[in-house]
């Protein structure tokens, strides 16, 4: 194969474009601007860490099937890990979101980063909700029978039946986590491409 043929390859072009957009030193930086020095930055990485624990504990629950945690003390403990990692995930995510709001983190061409974060938050709420209604216990019975009215009122209940445990479980363990993880990956990559938003320049006296 000639040099020019390699140059014309889709693979070569895609790799070059990706590396130009996100060179290794941007993807895994060894330094950060000096303003990246606040406790608020911890909550982004905490959200990601909690997401990993959520997925890991969910995978363990999936191995033995949806009834296992009702009948096994080990299963119940894994369910507790799943529950509390979800609680940490949402706590960290909400603090991260408010922190980014008050930093106006969409500035400097970062609006898509902000929007992927918001959509990830909304998808995460839906993911957690489908988990609550597919627990197959009293909580899931009550939450599902109450939630159906809201969802049915929008017309969506015709296709998204919260009383159908099998359907909800599939959304919870396949469809929504897939979307949430892909959105999270995109969000993190966008943060790396654009960098962390700098502080407001207070000296500049300009109008909005």
């Amino acid at each position, binding site marked *: 194969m000639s040099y020019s043929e390699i140059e014309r390859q889709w693979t070569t072009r895609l790799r070059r474009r990706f590396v130009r957009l996100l060179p290794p030193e941007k993807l*895994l930086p*060894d*330094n*950060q*601007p*000096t*303003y990246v020095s*606040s406790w*608020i930055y*911890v909550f982004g*990485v905490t959200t990601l*860490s909690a997401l990993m*624990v959520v997925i890991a504990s969910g995978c363990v629950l999936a191995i033995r099937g949806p009834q296992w*945690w*009702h009948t096994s003390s080990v299963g*119940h403990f894994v369910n*507790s*890990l799943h*529950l*509390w*990692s979800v609680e940490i995930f949402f706590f960290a995510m909400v603090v991260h979101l408010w922190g980014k*709001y*008050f*930093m*106006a983190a*969409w*500035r*400097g061409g970062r*609006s898509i980063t902000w*929007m992927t974060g*918001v*959509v990830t938050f909304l998808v995460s*709420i839906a993911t*957690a909700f489908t988990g609550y209604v597919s627990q197959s*216990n*009293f*909580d899931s*019975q*009550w939450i599902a*029978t*109450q939630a159906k*009215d*809201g*969802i*049915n*009122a*929008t*017309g969506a209940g*015709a*296709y998204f039946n919260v*009383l*159908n445990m*099998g*359907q909800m479980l599939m959304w919870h363990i396949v469809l929504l986590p897939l979307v949430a993880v892909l959105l999270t990956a995109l969000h993190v990559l966008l943060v790396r491409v654009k960098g962390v938003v*700098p*502080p*407001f*320049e*207070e000296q500049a006296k*300009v109008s909005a």
Partner: protein
Amino acid sequence: MSKKNFRPDVDAEPWKGGYSPYDIVKEATIALVVVALLTVVLAVFFGSPDDPAITIKTWSNATPVDFAVTALSELNGTSGVAQYGAPYNTGSSGQALGPLKLAKWVGVRIPVNTVTDFVIDPLKALPDQPLLTQALKQWKNASPSTRTSWVTNYTKASSTMTFANRQIVVNATNVGPVPLFIDDLTQMAQSGALDQALVTQAGFYTTDYTLPLLFLADGSYLANQAARQHLTGDQWGMMNETGNYPGQAWLWLYTFWYQVAPFNSSGNGDVLVWGLMMALSAGLLLTPFIPGLRSIPRKTRVYRLIWREHYQNVEES
């Protein structure tokens, strides 16, 4: 970009200041270990709730009259499901968001006929019941007006309904097979056979609990158990779960609207709350493009707390 065209809530000058060493992999690893350990500690100390599911057997044995009254409401068309509308039936036009009748437009996609699905079909599944077989034949051969007359007469007398000697008793005349239906269905429920019949109507393998959950929700037993666990709508129940657990605390705003007018009193409350939450979510999503909303961070100056160290350095230099 010239200073004149610079929009402080939209634009940000590239950073021209200093950089400090930052080990992102080390930070991520430490965060993961800390979060994992914290999760283990919380799981060990607090566990997670798992109250067993309520069955129709439990309900009908605990409060047989409530069960029988609910079964009658499925038969006479006054139950919540019978009058629900889409996606289950055409019992009502459903909720409307202004001129938008969203559920009605989508139509009946999960058909539920409360008479056949909750009463007649389950009774047909009972084996070796000559009297019941005769009663079902009588029901089948009767005209719609005769059936309505039987059910209406029984409903009128049902205020005196009692459960004695393991039987549902109502003193009523000209009611056809209705008393037998209600009594047999109650006994079927008490044996646990109705739970099974409602689940397996779609076949041997199923994970769809739409029918038994709708039947349970039509009675008052499930709601009474939920009220004891502070789970009803006016108890902020949508974000709670059984026991003293945080539940879905992130639904606080969604739950909040159900506590205040007009949402807590409107017949269209659900769709109004959903419409409002959709609008607020869109607002959050589009914040970077909404003048005023995107200026709040700059005007409130909360960012001074976040970048405290940075501004101290700027002021000192």
